[in-house]
């Protein structure tokens, strides 16, 4: 029997991703700097972002340009006329009692990006809308929130520009949601609109339902890993309810990152009425006449770069994908590939260096491209073995230093063929039994002899040459 398209148990996920435009020179509606992360609390404030009586918002044009860039990169349709609204609700972190956001007439709608589907193949995820809004202040608690006797409010974050990217419910698994975030983050990094390493740079609300069922919303997940974990938890929770015949209630839930669980915040009945209405202090905005200029200013995006890498450098799709997954990594590759054979570069950077970096939790900036070029040059000149090259990379990452010095200090220069021949002769002389086995066609014996030669040459012999010489001497096949 064919599976119905949405049989109960199918997972449906939609995401709302808040991205802080923390690279701008000022906040969304005032001149204060959004680069508050290392600052004392409440030092990046003014009457506007403190919501003092009489202060008025003035739109930061740079935020609009960034939002249009993101929308274009997500293949959205930019709206001709865009409007700001007041979203009215009371909360401690909201100094005006409302948040200036977009409601009807967001800056862009109807986009899509493709991600690798969990079951293989590309999947298109539709983007419902992209809009601009201001970030609230930050509440700080002494100790855990439940035990804190008071909340401290830091208004440094208040008024920082955010864009919100809202997907259609097109994602089908927590892994796919994470994959979507990776693709989005990659695009945002290329556009240079945010620094994801900073507090609050990216926050996610997720809607989850089992097909046909009621959906719940999990709010304020602030890490990529958290999104996958929160979604997994929520799916298991919902499935368990269904299995026990309990109705899922439409509600908003909070994700507790430390405990890895979601907790009910409020149910549908209490859902807020935000009393949206157009912000009278800001005039409607037309961006049409600037779209072409902005489009032209867009940098090469990950997809395009990946295709170019395959075509221009002849490297594999897989390598191209790894190398373009981070902007700085792709730049690193291009720097190296301009000096060294691109295919060799790609292999060493994507397979070896990236793995060593990941293992140490380091970024590509931890490794200077000139060192990679040097190592590959020495390797290509057959002066060190691949194994030694890996050793050099590891040493640089662990202790620093120049490749040439490390090779010298560690004596990694590849041994001459005559030295290898000498070691081969010794190995044969010292291991008659193995030699006999080898002549009888036992492969393990050949390997054993090779190991002996490598030992004598301290691993600096080229395995190909060792193999060749052994076979010549033993005349085995």
């Amino acid at each position, binding site marked *: 029997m064919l599976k119905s398209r949405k049989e109960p148990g199918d997972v449906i996920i939609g995401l709302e991703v808040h991205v802080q435009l923390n690279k701008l020179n000022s906040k969304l509606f005032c001149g204060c700097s959004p680069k508050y992360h290392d600052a004392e609390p409440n030092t990046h404030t003014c*009457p506007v972002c*403190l*919501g*003092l*009586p*009489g*202060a*008025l*918002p*003035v*739109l930061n044009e740079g935020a609009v340009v960034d939002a249009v860039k993101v929308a274009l990169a997500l293949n959205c349709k930019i709206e001709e006329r865009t409007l700001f609204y*007041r979203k*009215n609700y*009371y909360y*401690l972190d909201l*100094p*005006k*009692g*409302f948040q200036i956001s977009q409601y009807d007439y967001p800056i862009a709608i109807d986009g899509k990006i493709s991600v690798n589907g969990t079951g293989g193949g590309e999947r298109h995820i539709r983007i419902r809308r992209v809009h601009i809004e201001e970030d609230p202040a930050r509440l700080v608690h002494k100790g855990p929130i439940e035990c804190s006797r008071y*909340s401290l409010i830091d208004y440094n974050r208040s008024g920082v520009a955010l864009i919100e990217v809202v997907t259609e419910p097109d994602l089908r698994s927590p892994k796919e949601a994470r994959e979507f975030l990776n693709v989005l983050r990659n695009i945002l990094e290329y556009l240079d609109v945010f620094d994801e390493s900073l507090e609050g740079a990216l926050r996610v609300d997720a809607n989850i339902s089992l097909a046909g069922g009621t959906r719940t919303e999990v709010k304020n997940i602030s890490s990529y890993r958290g999104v996958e974990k929160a979604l997994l938890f929520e799916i298991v929770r919902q499935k368990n309810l269904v299995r026990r015949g309990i109705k899922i209630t439409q509600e908003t839930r909070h994700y507790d990152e430390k405990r890895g669980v979601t907790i009910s915040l409020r149910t549908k009945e209490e859902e807020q*009425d935000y*009393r*949206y*209405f157009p912000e*009278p*202090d*800001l*005039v409607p905005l037309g961006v049409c006449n600037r779209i072409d200029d902005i489009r032209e200013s867009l940098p090469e995006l990950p997809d395009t770069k990946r295709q170019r890498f395959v075509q221009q450098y002849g490297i594999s799709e897989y390598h191209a994908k790894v190398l373009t997954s981070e902007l700085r990594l792709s730049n690193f590759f291009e720097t190296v590939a301009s000096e060294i054979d691109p295919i060799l570069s790609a292999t060493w950077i994507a397979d070896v260096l990236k793995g060593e970096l990941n293992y140490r939790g380091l970024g590509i900036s931890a490794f200077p491209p000139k060192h990679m070029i040097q190592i590959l040059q020495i390797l290509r000149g057959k002066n060190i073995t691949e194994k030694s090259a890996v050793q050099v990379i590891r040493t640089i990452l662990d202790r620093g230093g120049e490749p040439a010095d490390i090779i010298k200090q560690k004596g990694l220069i590849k041994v001459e063929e005559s030295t290898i021949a000498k070691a081969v002769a010794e190995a044969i002389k010292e291991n008659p039994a193995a030699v006999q086995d080898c002549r009888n066609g036992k492969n393990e014996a050949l390997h054993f002899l090779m190991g002996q030669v490598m030992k004598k040459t301290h691993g600096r012999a080229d395995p190909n040459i060792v193999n060749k010489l052994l076979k010549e001497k033993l005349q085995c096949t």
Partner: protein
Amino acid sequence: MNVSEAKKRAEDESVEEVVTSLFDNIEKSELNAFITLAKESALKEARKVDRNGAKGALGGIPIALKDCISTKGIETTCGSRILKGYVPPYDAHVVERLRAEGAIIIGKTNMDEFAMGPSTETSYFGPTKNPHDLSRVAGGSSGGSAAAVAGEGVPIALGSDTGGSVRCPASFCGIVGLKPTYGLVSRYGLIAYANSLEQIGPFACNVEDVALLLNVIAGYDPRDSTSMDKKCEYTKELRDDVSDVKIGVPKEFFGEGIDEDVEKAVWDGIKILEDVGASYTEISLPHTKYSLAAYYIIAMSEASSNLARFDGLRYGLRLGKDEDWHTTFSEIRAQGFGEEVKRRVLLGTYALSAGYYGKYYLKALKVRTLVKRNFDAALKDVDVLITPTMPFPAFKIGEKTDDPLALYLADVNTVPINLAGVPSISVPCGFSGKLPIGMQIIGRHFDEGKILRMAYTFERHAGVRC
């Protein structure tokens, strides 16, 4: 005292003398025109001018400011208990302009709480009295500023006008008051009641001083997105000549509820202008009758949102007993806001809430568009419109406080102008007994020059002065 008299006295005696005698007047006065006096800083400024000589267009001229205009270092309460003790850390744009031109801020004037009302009776600090009859209101919501000019000898003052709040008290107190075109004067630092409607406007005893003050406060400000670069030299527009002006008289503004004396005084005024060369025609603004309803829905909706920030957490009223923030916050608002403010916040919240937004708020916006079109069409055929400012002279304190709806009706002739965003000036045009009557001259967008010239010409020929 007008500006040239103040200048003369300052030359003959000193600025310090002028300011000191003003404070004497105010302190002796029963009008309750001021909430806060900035005596120390004003006298210091005055002595500085006496030492260094007067600089700027308003060098050494004392000015009173409505208490919803933010002044750095001077308490600003908006006539509300909830803002008691709030000292803004910054100056409003107009205050920066005034200081730059040498004006001396003598204090903050009484007003309807958060500018809500046509009588200055909703002020937490008690009503302001009418200088012409102490048992009557001075008008609102800028009643304190108008009474200070009319009754206490302050040469110039600023108010704000959301639905008539400058023109109403100007009319009731017998002085000149102007509501500029929306966008001409920056609202930066004006504590908002209804952002899309309000403008800061000047008061003075005569048209010339109003023009002089407008010269100073008008002009582009990058901190207000609705601000426009449309300023001109208004004092240069003041010529005794209206021969090129076509006046339109909209019949809807002379309708039911209008006082006989008022109607007669305004018609007499129109006649005077006709006698000196202007022509007039009767016209119609058919959507005027919906203006009041639309105005109140828009104003209250915006107010409900604007007033959400007043929670006592960061500034203003504190009650000293802190419970969880919901309770503390509710308690502060319950005690900090007066009845009229609560009424309007609740009505505004209701009008914006899901399910009613389309029925009320969106409809009000549609009416607003129609009213605007009425004005645009009318002002294509004629240069200015003339109407009574208020349908009646100043009423008795307490007379209408029990009936909010009757009070709202008082704004019937002024609110359509705010919906349309056009400029409008109220000039004294006669008396009903001892109570002044105001005539309203409405102009095209940014055509302040023309309505000031009309008012100036009228003032010279009608001879009604404060």
